[in-house]
């Protein structure tokens, strides 16, 4: 009996391994390091002089992508040996070959005929959803759906549409995700001008302010790659607050490709009555030298604090503070002292006043 069991276990194990291997191989490409995979091509293509600007690859943005780890040839598999002199146009692998699930999901969506993968993604500058700011995600949409047109369209039913479209990437409302979280971005006044407009702070700007230290140290003062409420409070109190501040953006945990107008997002309570429990999680997104972002976990409940942690982020209904609720209740109870207390004595002594008015008649 024991042997059959072992045999069964062995078979199960092998099957599992095979399935895993098949999955790992699904993309058909290994993608370890970027070493050497793109160098020959980049010798010319990183250089704006060797190739026309439209053929230049921005290595700053390319090198950190997953695509850099599979290399140019994985997609451009038809480059001829005589390139570029022979002027043969190289074949480009389509996205579907490697991203079958995404392509299928997108293919089923109403949006499929409206835009192709390349309309939203530049294959040489792809990012994972957690490496990209909401603004940049919105830039993908803005080439077809202009900001002004969208504000006007949404303002027809959405109160403070300008605020919503500024703080919510389009995909938060137009793709389905199980969960949402608040990412805090550092924004900065333009050109160190105390009246300048606020923009996402770039790596270079924060690097200058960090004075030689890691830019993380601007908030994460104890360098434990974790942002406590105390660290947030300190950041907000610091002098540079006039130039820097934290902006909260609500993003989906997963980005799906079923772009559509979701019925549930039409109902404000989807976000505003989710209850304080839903608003516990937040992360801090810090810019990287290469233009992407790294997220760092923030202590639970940051956006729910009364004042200190995120002084300028408030979602009505969802991020109300429990202590303030109690103070408010106490005030209202104070207002009931007179009607209840006085009213009781008034009832008890009602005879006295009746006698008085009789005496006068």
């Amino acid at each position, binding site marked *: 009996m024991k042997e059959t069991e072992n045999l069964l276990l062995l078979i199960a194990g092998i099957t599992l391994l095979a399935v895993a291997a098949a999955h790992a191989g699904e993309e058909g490409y290994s993608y370890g390091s970027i070493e050497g995979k793109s160098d020959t091509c980049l010798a010319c293509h990183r250089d704006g002089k060797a190739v026309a600007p439209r053929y230049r690859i921005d290595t700053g943005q390319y090198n950190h992508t997953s695509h850099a780890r599979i290399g140019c040839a994985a997609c451009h598999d038809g480059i001829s040996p005589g390139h570029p002199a022979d002027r043969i146009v190289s074949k480009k692998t389509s996205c579907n070959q490697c991203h079958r699930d995404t392509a299928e999901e997108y293919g089923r969506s109403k949006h499929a005929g409206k835009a192709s993968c390349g309309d939203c993604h530049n294959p040489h500058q792809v990012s994972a959803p957690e490496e990209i700011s909401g603004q940049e995600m919105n830039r993908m949409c803005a080439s077809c759906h202009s900001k002004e047109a969208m504000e006007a369209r949404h303002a027809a039913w959405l*109160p403070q549409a300008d*605020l919503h479209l500024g703080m919510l990437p389009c995909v938060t409302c137009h793709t389905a995700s199980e969960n949402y979280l608040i990412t805090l971005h550092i924004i900065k006044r333009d050109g160190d001008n105390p009246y300048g407009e606020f923009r996402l702070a770039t790596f270079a700007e924060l690097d200058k302010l960090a004075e030689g230290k890691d830019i993380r140290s601007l908030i994460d003062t104890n360098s434990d790659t974790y942002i406590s409420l105390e660290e947030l409070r300190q950041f907000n109190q610091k002098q540079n607050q006039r130039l820097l501040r934290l902006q909260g953006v609500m993003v989906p945990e997963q980005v799906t490709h079923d772009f559509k107008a979701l019925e549930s997002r039409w*109902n404000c*309570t989807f976000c505003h009555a989710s209850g304080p429990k839903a608003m516990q999680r937040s992360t801090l997104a810090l810019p990287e030298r290469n233009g992407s972002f790294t997220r760092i976990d923030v202590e639970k409940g940051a956006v729910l604090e009364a*004042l200190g942690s995120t002084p300028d982020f408030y979602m009505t*209904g969802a991020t109300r503070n429990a202590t303030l609720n109690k103070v408010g209740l106490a005030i*209202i109870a104070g207002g009931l002292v007179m009607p209840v207390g006085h009213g009781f004595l008034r009832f008890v002594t009602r005879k006295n006043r009746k006698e008085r008015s009789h005496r006068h008649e």
Partner: protein
Amino acid sequence: MSENKMIYLQPTPVRIWHWLNALGIVTLCITGIQIRFPEFMAIFGSYKTAIMLHNTAGIVVSLSFSLWFFYYKMSGKLAKIYVPKPDELKYGLVRQAFFYFFRYFRGDPSPHHATPDNKFNPMQKSAYLAIMFVLMPLVALTGILLMNVTPLRELILLSGGLKILVAVHFLLACSLGAFLFTHVYLATLGRTPTAYIKPMWSGWEETEGDEAEVHH
């Protein structure tokens, strides 16, 4: 009954203001609860309706507040009616409180006699002064800022951020709610429970010879 006198106590603009204000503030309180606690309360249907109603009522109350302010300002009575005199602060307040909490129960008349130029007793003056010159303008101001977060962001930042505005707006609203309970209750302390409410509606107050009103 000895001879009854009618005096015109509440001019029309004040009455219009008052009832617009009352309706507005009650609407604001109820929609406000729904906006802050949507899980527990949905009297006005959707959240959006509550917000629209709250915003509209807020604007109506702010406008009617301006009506009230300019009416009194123009008539030059603002200070006379609403600002307690030093004497009133020193003795009047105590006398009035003593009346409310002791002599009233014995059936004594109020020490204050209402006339169109001096219609409030010292306690009323102090309470209305705080409500109308501090609470109301501040709730309206914070409310207007919260209604226009993006266009007025710089002002919001100057005040210390959205959260501080929300906190101030909420706590002031609770204070107005507390005032409302007390105010409505005191409005029933006349000779009859509606003795004070009628003049606020018709303008005319009936006084009973020299046994003047137990004006609250």
